[in-house]
């Protein structure tokens, strides 16, 4: 893979990350944003790199996966940057509701440990704008979820793109 091969997933991953970060816009696309970005990435790859059709499934999966990974990197970076600037985020804002809900279970020590960790994260964010636990957690979950959805988008994209060959 040369640098040109990385361009479509990079651009589409960035676009998906922007859309998932903008409040309100996410509600329109929901779980389809990353798969749609992966499909677009396949299409752009075909246009820019003149990839021969029909698309090979392996290549489509790799492009989808890369789109998901780039989306995860950018989305996590945006989240961390915004958290650093505003010293707040969704996690901090919804922590009281989460705590109320979890306290309902009366779990004793287990609950205290869990809530203690979460409160520490919230306190770090409010004071310094950064929490290592939060950063690691957000990168980890973004990577897994977006990689899966990107790969699925790549697989689905083959159906759309290869249809052009049959035409």
């Amino acid at each position, binding site marked *: 893979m040369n640098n040109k091969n990385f361009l479509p997933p990079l651009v589409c991953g960035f676009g998906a990350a922007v859309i*998932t970060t903008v409040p309100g816009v*996410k*509600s*329109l696309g*929901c*779980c389809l944003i*990353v798969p749609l970005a992966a499909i677009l990435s396949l299409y752009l790859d075909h246009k820019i790199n003149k990839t021969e059709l029909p698309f090979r*499934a*392996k290549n489509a*999966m790799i492009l989808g996966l890369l789109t998901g990974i780039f989306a995860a990197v950018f*989305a996590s970076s945006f989240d961390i940057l915004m958290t650093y600037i505003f010293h707040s985020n*969704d*996690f901090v804002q919804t922590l009281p509701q*989460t705590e109320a*809900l*979890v306290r*309902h*279970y009366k*779990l004793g020590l*287990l*609950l205290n440990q*869990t809530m203690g960790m*979460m409160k520490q994260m919230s306190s770090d964010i409010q004071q310094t704008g950064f929490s290592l636990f939060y950063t690691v*957690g*957000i990168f980890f*979950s*973004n990577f*897994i*979820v*977006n990689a899966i*959805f990107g790969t*699925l988008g790549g*697989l*689905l994209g*083959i*159906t*759309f793109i290869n*249809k052009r060959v049959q035409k």
Partner: protein
Amino acid sequence: MVPENKRNFLRLGIFFLLTVWCFGFSFESLFPGSSLAAVSYPILKHAYGEVCHQIPAKTFLIGGKKLLVCARCTGIYLGALTISLLSLFFFKKLKLEVKLLYVSITPILIDVIFSSFNIYKYSKIIAFGTGLFFGSIVFVYILATIENIFIEKKFSE
């Protein structure tokens, strides 16, 4: 392993993964009061938040607890799970026209546009229904592609 067995094994694996995914977003509703549900709630909420807006007004309440994904996403995942289960017993050969994929996404697009521009009020049932239809159809395409990669190609080589 013969192709038929390999196909069934693959479909069983996909069904298992989808079941785990669906259990994840409905864990708190299915096992209210369990300590595991309480402890895993913040983690699962954040993980599913990556793929869904989780707006409370657009989310189903089951047993007094909100699911971790919206009504449309619930429909998509349950549609995929249902077809995944059915694929274990039926649909031995998967071949679909791409037109059906366009048809399946049309109701979602219409619903999103109409409810966003207040042509009609957002309905969880409609969102769930459009998601269910889309999820069922799209899963068949994805399954067909996966089978094509892991089974058909290897045996044709």
